[in-house]
């Protein structure tokens, strides 16, 4: 069945599209290179002032170097450097898909109350010594945070499946959750001892110094589990951006796609937050930067969001330890300071509408 009646004049559309796709692939590769560079810097810099040669030797011939060098590279620098990557990537990806399925540019783990819920869960442990899941008290803080975050995410999801609830009301619900959990957190803080209070304040600030190898593996595994799931639905997720009716008309089961995506997103958002605390900015801005760079075709948007978030947090990790040598500044603060200028530049130089 041939549809066109007019003869073909040129093939410019096709060529232009191929060029556009190539440009995006190049951009994504550039981000990947930048990420590798940032990880390398993160690995190479530190108050112990090892030479590049020592760092490399320790990386490739770990047995041949002294205990201290090996511990610094393998147990201190590397978990932090890799945790920055997995956490940044997870939060950014979670934000990207939340924005996609809720059709709202303000959606992110932070703005929908998932981070706030995690913070409250952690505070329950830090202040009240309450273990929601009493079997594993030594992991009480991350487990509490995770369970509360999942509860919030599922609440958001099931609310979104109720009749008469639109994507706009979902964001309002999320904001209501943020306020609720923040109020509960403040109440707990009001009842807290100074020591617990300091721990809660520090926890809610978010910090990569909590990184350990098991945490790196878990966040990495969740990320590796989520990416193919989203990749398989890349075309469908992109189509969601054309509106619910349009997506349905293209044969997509919108409700089911939203459910599956939201479940995965909950996991992606809750796990990093339960390990490293609240890092608000990446999940909101990472996807926006990616969108401005490569658009919303998920085949490009998905890897770009992952890389943007990873790069943003990795660069933050470098800055947070180099700004005052020897100290580690709270990462949530630095993320915003690193990301905002870049974000502004993109907003003001981007002529095309981005959302």
């Amino acid at each position, binding site marked *: *069945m*041939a*549809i*066109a*009646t*007019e003869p*073909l*004049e040129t*093939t*410019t*559309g*096709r060529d*232009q*599209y*191929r060029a*556009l*796709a190539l440009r995006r692939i190049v951009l994504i590769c550039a981000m990947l290179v930048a990420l590798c560079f940032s990880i390398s810097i993160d690995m190479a810099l530190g108050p112990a002032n090892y030479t590049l040669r020592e760092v490399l030797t320790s990386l490739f011939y770990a047995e041949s170097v002294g205990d201290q060098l090996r511990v610094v590279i393998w147990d201190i620098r590397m978990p932090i450097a890799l945790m920055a990557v997995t956490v940044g990537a997870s939060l950014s990806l979670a934000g990207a898909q939340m924005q996609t399925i809720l*059709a709202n540019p303000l959606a992110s783990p932070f703005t929908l109350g998932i981070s706030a819920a995690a913070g409250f869960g952690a505070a329950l442990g830090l202040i009240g010594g309450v273990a929601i899941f009493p079997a594993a008290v030594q992991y009480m803080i991350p487990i509490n945070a995770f369970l509360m975050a999942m509860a919030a995410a599922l609440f958001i999801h099931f609310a979104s499946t109720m*009749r008469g609830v639109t994507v706009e009301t979902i964001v309002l619900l999320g904001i209501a959750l943020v306020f609720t959990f923040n109020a509960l957190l403040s109440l707990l803080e009001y009842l807290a001892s100074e020591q617990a209070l300091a721990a809660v304040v520090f926890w809610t600030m978010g910090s990569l110094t909590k990184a350990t190898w098991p945490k790196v593996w878990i966040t990495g595994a969740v990320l590796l589990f989520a990416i193919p799931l989203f*990749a398989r639905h*890349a*075309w*469908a997720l*992109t*189509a969601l*951006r*054309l*509106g619910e*009716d*349009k997506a*349905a*008309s*293209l*044969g*997509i089961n919108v409700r089911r796609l939203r459910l599956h995506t939201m479940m995965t997103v909950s996991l992606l958002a809750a796990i990093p937050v339960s390990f490293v605390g609240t890092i608000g900015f990446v999940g909101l801005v990472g996807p926006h930067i990616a*969108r*401005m760079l490569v*658009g*919303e*075709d998920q*085949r490009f948007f998905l890897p770009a969001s992952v890389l943007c978030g990873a790069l943003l947090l990795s660069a933050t990790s470098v800055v947070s330890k180099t700004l005052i040598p020897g100290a580690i500044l709270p990462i949530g603060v630095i993320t915003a300071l690193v990301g905002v200028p870049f974000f502004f530049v993109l907003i003001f130089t981007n002529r*095309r*509408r*981005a*959302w």
Partner: protein
Amino acid sequence: MVGLALKGVGAKYGKHTVLSDVDTDILRGGVMTAVIGPNAAGKSTLFKRIAGLASGPGTVVLSDTLKGPETICYMPQDTGANAVLTVYESVLLASKQGSSWKVRDSELVEIDRILQALRINDLAFRGLGELSGGQRQLVSIAQALVRKPEVLLMDEPTSALDLFRQIEVLGFMRRLAAKSGMSVLIALHDLNHALRYCENTIVIAKGAMVASGLTGDVITGGMLRDIYRVEARVEMCSHGKPVVIVDHSIV
């Protein structure tokens, strides 16, 4: 050639019946069928029901189809103005649903053809957000056509177009239907468009079918009085074509 017939088709939202008792003869491919009726009569609901996007009683009978029920394509009124996608990408993604990441040259050639046929190839690399409502309607048509449906349900595809574009799009769709054997159902407000381009007409009012048949038989002064509450005549113009002339509304 594909055929579509509706047997006692209705639609429900929850327990609420919003449409009932739509019956038609076999609507053959190759021609267009107008679906007319006042605002909120249930035209969009009928389309969604036919496309399987809404549930309800009755059966939608497809005959002589090559692809089965999936061949029915519903085209909503608009396509996402917020998406950060170019026109070209938005058409590509409509054609790629359910298939692999890899984009073949043949698929791109097809998109080029459709964009040129709709004369929107100069918009191909503009963002959807930069387009006017009318331009987006044309993109929406392209998104539907690229899926090569045998039954196409177009929900007011010309509502935001200027007169030239309306005539152009409707003429194009009629020629396309004739050439490809596609059955096109098209929701319209302009009854003169229905008279000029559509072989059959279905009239929907207050959630029920009022009439169905050849356009010339269905669009009459009596129907206009009953359904649209206007005093009107259907007369032959100087070219010998029927036109609707509206005198005044009935208060």
